[in-house]
């Protein structure tokens, strides 16, 4: 149980893609984020659950708008 809450399911991380670009993501274990370089977004992992919602993602470059399309 402690293992589950410690981090996300590794098999799930292999599967997930960016909901905007549908491209693979990079896992930043330290920040507990999934990075989509192309979309310029970091999707947070909260309580072991990846939050793959564009409106809850952190823009990597705060000056640029996320690519919606």
């Amino acid at each position, binding site marked *: *149980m402690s293992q*589950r809450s410690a981090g996300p*399911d590794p*098999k*799930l991380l292999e*599967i*997930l*893609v*960016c*909901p*905007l670009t*549908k491209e693979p993501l990079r896992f930043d274990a330290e920040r507990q984020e999934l990075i989509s370089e192309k979309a310029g977004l970091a*999707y947070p992992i*909260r*309580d*072991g*659950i*990846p*939050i*793959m*919602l*564009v409106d809850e993602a952190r823009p990597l470059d705060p000056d640029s708008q996320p690519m919606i399309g």
Partner: protein
Amino acid sequence: MTTEDQNRPEGTTHFGFRTVREEEKASLVRGVFDEVAPKYDLMNDLMSLGVHRLWKDSMIGWLRPRPGMALVDVGGGTGDIAFRFRKRGGGPVVVCDINREMLSVGRDRALNKGIIEGISWVCGDAERLPIPDASMDAYTIAFCLRNVTHIDAALKEARRVLKPGGRFLCLEFSHVTVPGLREVYDRYSFDLLPVLGQVVARNREAYQYLVESIRRFPPQPELAERMRAAGLERVSWRDLSGGIAAIHSGWRL
């Protein structure tokens, strides 16, 4: 498109019987489910007189799970479909729900049942799934599609994530096809259900929304047509309990 859709101002959609801006709907729906999440399964029992359990069994029965069959279950945060699929011998499941509260309920239930493998939980939107192209053998969506802002976008996403030969199944409240039953069901759902929502979940508005959203959902033949338009093939449906609910089936070929 129904006549009602065409008469709506551009950029708006329906939230139950209210017309709201499209951008508003997702957060309104999320609000409904955040509030009712802890009582959601109990309320489903009341809304369907307990029969939703049998309907879910029927959907899994129709799917015929087999080992290695990869499933994405959309909107099934509390785990009802995923648990059944695993129990009937299915392969790995990704449960994708837009609502975090529902996912927490589902994950806790999985732990209580001693299920630690085979089910992954992810927060995502049916219209923009975080799932690769052609990666799933099956896609299920139970009591969720009517809450999605753009049904056609969700159907296209379903087709996209399915492998060729993959199966789409949607279980949803539908339109009663038996005349005598229709009146009884209308009385029950419009007069009694919001009161039950008030008493059990302390949220009359949420259940008022649920009842209205059911009436707004496309009737069986229209949903079948929209599935075909999204590229699904061999589309068919089965009415459950006289059409109170229906299961729609389609394939990516």
